């Protein structure tokens, strides 16, 4: 599989960092556990944020839920990226050639684009919106897209090991 991968990924896998992650008894398991813990933070934050945008917890002012949940989601995403990068580096040439991983990477890009380009502007001006007021269609659409994409990303992440 090694020879099929792009040169920079082979270099990444063969780097000192890659070797250190593979040769340590604990680095890889710790990254693995960290990735799952970060996932729970990320998934919970995304779920709260998106459900509020869709109209759940209607008794709260939307901004009071959506904005802090979005910050927590960004923290979760950053931790997933860090731990994911460790796991990826250990076997970059294999993983990058894995079809499910490629689908997952594409979905992550779409999820981030949705969060930045569709959800971001839609929730930028909700600070004064009172409770029991539905958010605009654009915000609800972004929330549905977000939920679908991130659930698919999680499924792909687990399925990489089987393809």
């Amino acid at each position, binding site marked *: 599989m090694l020879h099929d991968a792009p040169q920079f990924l082979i270099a990444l896998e063969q780097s000192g960092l890659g070797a250190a992650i593979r*040769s340590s008894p604990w680095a890889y398991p710790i990254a693995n556990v960290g990735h799952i813990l970060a996932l729970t933070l990320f998934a919970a934050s995304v779920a709260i944020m998106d459900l509020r945008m869709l109209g759940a917890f209607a008794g709260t002012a939307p901004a009071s839920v959506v904005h802090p949940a979005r910050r927590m989601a960004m923290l979760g995403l*950053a931790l997933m990226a860090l731990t*994911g990068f460790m796991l990826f580096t250990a076997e970059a040439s294999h*993983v990058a050639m894995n079809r499910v991983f490629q689908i997952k990477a594409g979905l*992550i890009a779409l999820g*981030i684009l949705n969060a930045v380009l569709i959800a971001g502007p839609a929730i930028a001006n909700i600070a004064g919106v009172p409770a029991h007021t539905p958010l605009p269609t654009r915000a609800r659409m972004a929330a549905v897209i977000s939920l679908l994409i991130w659930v698919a990303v999680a499924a792909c992440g687990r399925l990489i090991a089987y393809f």
Partner: protein
Amino acid sequence: MRRTLAIALFVLAAPAAVLAHHGWGSYDASKLVTVEGPIEASTYANPHVQITVKAPDKTWTVTLAPISRMQSRGAPAELVAIGKTVKAEGYASKAEPGEMRAERITVDGKTVEMR
């Protein structure tokens, strides 16, 4: 926020995975394979230790356990070093010809369970 997400996008262009064969579904568990011969290559690394064994019929890539489990079961790197003679019992991969996952290995008269 936009800039943070843009950076995250780049970092995530190549993110996370566990390529370990969890559940081991792609191995033929209906037929136990025994591979015996000298170890020609040994990669004592996570997520799985792998050794290359020159058996009489062909050369096998034998997938063992993660480092921490190998160590806790009494199989340090020296036990599966190049030149040692190993007997590995396990299941052949249905996806990758010549690869097997070992259920147990015997080296120097010592048997170590991998699962």
